[in-house]
């Protein structure tokens, strides 16, 4: 049993602690299995980046052990760990072309030039960035930079890939596309990854398992849906913000627009997914209307206010619109609209405010 656990585990952190500048990691123990896509979710300042940097060897822990593929790497320098690291700002080397960026890891390991060239081309064609190879880094868009950074990290065939907030620099419309891209690349290349994020949609959509991290501590580890449905404490519950999370099925589509049946209630979403899906609508992205006015929002649902409560800095409304919705308003908006329990209102939100996964 123990043998089976250790062989399945690719990376294990044992009681790792570190304090660096204003960031802290407190007694973190973690197992990442071979081939697993592991998501670490937590708010800004939770120490997620520091955790990745400890695993990469950029910092050494104050105490604890890091075991990678059966080897104690706690104090091994980064160049001897074989870890792929994609930092949040991608950090593409500005003085090199895209091709030289991707090939860097092979060149410094002394691979012959023609082999570097061939492997860069192979991987680039798999990642669909072959057309970017001769470009200068400064001419790339955010999404292109990300793909190049991914290729640069993957070319050394790392034991584990570390992704620091890979989607946070992208606009919401392209995030679904990039999540799909990451899944596709993973299917193709089959790597083990740790992905750090503050967005539970990424955790649910990409993660095999996830850890919830707050103030440098891991508070809960498990399958993403399990954590979101059964958060161990109020901190996790409030952060994962599992408001307005529904199961549904795509029943019709017009181009980029999908009509999703949530069990009686239908919403429109900007997604390319089909079949059974999960749908999330952030409470602060819903607008309350008193009349069914003509507005640009694609979705307008009718409902009755059931409860009004404080959710600093917002006011939280529970509204029955066929399904239980939660909406956050500012106090000013609440007073302007003169809302009260039992009042009939309309919920309006854009198709792009509906996250599908």
């Amino acid at each position, binding site marked *: 049993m123990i043998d089976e656990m250790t062989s399945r585990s690719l990376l294990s952190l044992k009681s790792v602690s570190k304090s660096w500048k204003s960031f802290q990691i407190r007694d973190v123990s973690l197992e990442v299995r071979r081939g697993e896509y592991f998501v670490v979710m937590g708010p800004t300042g939770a120490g997620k980046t520091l955790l990745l*940097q400890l695993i990469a060897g*950029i910092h050494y822990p104050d105490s604890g052990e890091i075991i990678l593929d059966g080897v104690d790497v706690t104090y091994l320098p980064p*160049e001897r760990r074989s*870890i792929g690291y994609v*930092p949040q700002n991608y950090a593409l080397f500005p003085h090199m072309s895209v091709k030289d960026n991707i090939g*860097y890891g092979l060149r410094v390991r002394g691979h012959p030039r023609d082999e570097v060239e061939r492997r860069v081309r192979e991987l680039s064609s798999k990642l669909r960035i072959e057309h970017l190879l001769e470009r200068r880094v400064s001419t790339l868009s955010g999404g292109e930079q990300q793909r190049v950074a991914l290729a640069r990290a993957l070319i050394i065939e790392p034991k584990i890939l570390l992704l620091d907030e890979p989607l946070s620099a992208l606009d919401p419309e392209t995030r679904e596309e990039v999540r799909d891209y990451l899944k596709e690349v993973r299917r193709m290349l089959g790597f083990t990854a740790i992905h750090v994020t503050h967005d539970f949609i990424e955790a649910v959509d990409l993660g095999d398992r996830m850890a919830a991290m707050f103030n440098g501590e891991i508070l809960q580890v498990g399958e993403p849906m399990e954590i979101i449905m059964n958060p161990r404490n109020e901190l996790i519950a409030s952060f994962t913000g599992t408001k307005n999370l529904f199961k549904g099925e795509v029943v019709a589509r017009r181009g980029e627009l999908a009509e999703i049946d949530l069990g009686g209630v239908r919403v429109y979403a900007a997604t390319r997914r089909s079949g059974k899906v999960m749908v999330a609508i952030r409470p602060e992205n819903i607008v309350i209307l008193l009349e069914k006015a003509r507005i640009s929002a694609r979705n307008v649902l009718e409902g009755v206010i059931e409860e009004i409560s404080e959710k600093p800095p917002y006011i939280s409304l529970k509204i029955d619109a066929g399904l239980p919705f939660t909406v956050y308003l500012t106090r000013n908006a609440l007073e302007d609209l003169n809302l009260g329990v039992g009042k009939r209102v309309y919920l309006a939100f854009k198709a792009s405010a509906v996250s599908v996964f």
Partner: protein
Amino acid sequence: MGASQGGLSWGDDMRRVENLFLTFSILGSIIVLILLIPMMVAFLMTNPIQVGEALMDLEVLNALSTTFTAAATATISALLFGTPLAYILARREFALKNLLESLLNVPLAIPHSVAGILVLLAYHSRSSIGEILSRIGIVVEDSFWGIVLAMLFVSAPIFISSARSGFSMIDETFEHVARTLGAGHFKTFFTITIPLASRSIISGAIVTWARAVSEVGALLIVAPYPKSIALLVIERFEAFGLSAAIPITALLLLIGIIVVLILNYISRR
């Protein structure tokens, strides 16, 4: 009119701004003229034939070659020893770092004759360090090495602070990523850090070289011979008067302008 209700209108505001720029332009022109007039006069007074003659003058050529090679040697020394120091200052914190950085700038804050006295005092051939140096054939008084040492003393601080600020501006994440990709510390330094800091390093080296070429005071104290070009200008001026100094002056001015243009090109690239 209607818009001026309750405070300034746009028009008032605009006039104020323009007045400010008008006043500042007048004040600014005065300093521009003070600086540019001597340069223009020097070129107007210069007979190109005399400059050509100066370039044939063996004493001038020797002084130029002494100055340029000594300045280049000082610059290379600053590069070789100053670059590692600058990197440490940019990347690591240690006790008394601020004090060290301040002390390294002292040569820029003292009269150059004083800098010359300091160099001579510490390294003259009968001093304890000077004795060791003379055993390997380096004597400071009236020698090429004395010129190099005096130049290094007054110009190295410029290189160190330029390289240090270049290194500080580089996001450490670049170095971190290079390390994870398999490059050791040294390889990362030479393939990532140095290329990214190259602009600061090159422009720092050029300013250091130019500063070394322009040194007079310390050389007068440490090594008036072999004669460097700045000392030759003084000698000609004192022996033969203002007009005798003009050809060399024009030559050095031209070199100075070229240096500044090169720096300008590097910083825009």
